[in-house]
């Protein structure tokens, strides 16, 4: 029974990872941008949510309506002012600049909030669980996070394939120079993509903050899980990202079930194994 439980909890955890990864997958797919600061931007959003929750006495779930717009604007500005300058064939400048931004965010948060662990308290929701059988139950919070990640991916998918802006995003992903010739303002499209990505990251951050403790240093680990999900899923495939998140989540849960010290390690090993047999991920949609 503990195995079924592990797989179930791992799947729910995977939904959380997919939510971390959805924004990353979006910007990676649209503009091949490797955002090393993504994990720290998630943590930044969690701290903004914390400030909202504590100062306005809001429920964390309601803070979504404040934090997501803030992060959308932040993402738009970040892309427009800094990142658009360095986009190009060479990935080195992007990695270096986002590495720099990552360090700046970590240390600014550390200066303001110190290294203390924080949590977004969600009242009753914290402990409420759904009983599936005598030995099996799942928390409402992980379940909501999982459903949210499916909802986010479904709506991103709809946005990409059914709306005009989504078409522009896809066209830009295929060939950003030709899209410019068609009269599209590439910089604006990229900035929008980053805005959407960070709004999704903010959503992920709020669920993260309700489920686990966080402090200014936890960003890089979130980044790695998110990247693993994106790469396992394959470039440009959002459902692939969800599958990737679940694979990482389940591997971690199974690893933890064998030996608590192996949780994170087994996720990484499964990632490296998949990379070794399928270097382009499981469901690649576009070519790099």
């Amino acid at each position: 029974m503990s195995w079924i439980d592990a797989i179930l909890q791992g799947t729910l955890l995977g939904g959380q990872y997919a939510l971390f990864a959805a924004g990353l997958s979006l910007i990676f797919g649209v503009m091949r941008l490797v955002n090393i600061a993504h994990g720290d931007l998630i943590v930044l959003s969690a701290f903004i949510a914390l400030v909202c929750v504590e100062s306005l006495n809001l429920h964390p779930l309601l803070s979504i309506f404040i934090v997501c717009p803030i992060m959308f604007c932040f993402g738009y500005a970040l892309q427009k002012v800094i990142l658009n300058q360095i986009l190009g064939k060479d990935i080195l400048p992007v990695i270096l600049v986002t590495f720099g931004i990552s360090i700046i965010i970590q240390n600014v948060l550390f200066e303001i909030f110190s290294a203390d662990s924080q949590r977004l308290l969600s009242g009753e929701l914290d402990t409420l669980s759904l009983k599936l059988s005598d030995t099996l139950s799942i928390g409402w919070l992980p379940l909501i996070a999982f459903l949210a990640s499916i909802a986010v991916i479904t709506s991103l998918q709809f946005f990409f394939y059914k709306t005009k802006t989504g078409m522009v995003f896809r066209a830009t992903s295929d060939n950003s120079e030709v899209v410019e010739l068609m009269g599209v303002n590439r910089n604006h499209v990229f900035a929008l993509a980053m805005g959407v990505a960070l709004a999704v990251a903010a959503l992920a951050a709020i669920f993260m903050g309700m489920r686990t403790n966080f402090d200014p240093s936890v960003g890089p680990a979130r980044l790695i899980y998110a990247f693993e999900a994106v790469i396992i899923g394959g470039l440009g495939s959002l459902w692939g990202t969800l599958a990737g998140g679940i694979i990482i989540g389940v591997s971690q849960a199974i690893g933890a079930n064998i030996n608590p010290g192996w949780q994170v390690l087994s996720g990484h090993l499964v990632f490296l194994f998949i990379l070794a047999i399928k270097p382009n991920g499981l469901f690649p949609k576009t070519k790099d």
Partner: protein
Amino acid sequence: MSFTNKNHNAENLSSFESKNSSLRKIFIVIFILLLVMAVSLPWWGGRSDMRLVSEFCYYLVLAQLWNLIAGYGGLVSIGQHAFVGLGGYAFFIFTVYLGVHPLAAILLSGVFALIFAIPSAYLLFRLYGAYFAVGTWVLAEVYRLGFAQVTTMGGGSGMSLPINIIKKLGDSKFDREMLLYFISLILALSVIASIYFVLRSSWGLALTAIRDSETAAESLGVKKRLIKYSVYLFAAFGAGMAGSIIYLNKLRISPDSAFSVSDWTVNIIFIVVIGGLGTLEGPIIGALIFFLLREILADFGSIYMIFLGIVAVIVMLKFPKGIWGFISSYFNIEIFPVRRKLLISKKGT
């Protein structure tokens, strides 16, 4: 070299000479002076100066190695801390558990890191660009978490170096510190010298050709795999030795410090970027600035990291070739000329 000299060998189209030779001489004199000061430091400086300079040396080694693989080889790794950690742990394994003399253990630690680098490279070289970068980081995490599982070495909390091993390095404290100091200095000088000679050889040309276009280089007969493997393994070997020296200095090792991405990768990348990527002089300038800022802002803790991050971002945006790139293009000078230049013959004019 003057233009008239060049006329005599019009067939020789490539040369390493830099044009502004008088300014170059000044820089070389400054460099030699610094070197003399460094070598004589134990006789006039204090112990803290020696510690600082040896720390400078191993940061410089790591910066030069990262610059070699990323700046020249185009292998953008963000997981070089893997080899620092492997080297550090290897040093403890060899000295504490196998009774190897510390000096031999330093060399063996490099070999240990190199052996681990072979399967790592086999896996990572299947990946390109961003995938490669992320893969290197994940692999470093795997090594960190792996060592955290080894309970005989203290697991996640790490272990200390027993005093009897340190005593093998010399009888008095001064002897030991001087030996440690010269080891760091020799490692730094030999790494810089070997990179310099590699880059001036046909290997260096092949390396930059791969960086600029893998396909074009391969079509011209460059053995891409061999060259990429060689530089990656060389960098692992050097980082492994640096790691062993770092933890011989620190006397204590733990997975979180040995495989620290911020200490051994982020800082190193900042040094190279601020100094100037793809030049041998850049990491030296970058390391000098890094240590200067650190000494000035030491009391401010995380403000220092914020400042360093801002400087790195601005340099990347405004001076992508770094401080040395700016100086060298402004004055047209190279201290360690490794770039080949096309010299058009002036014959007949």
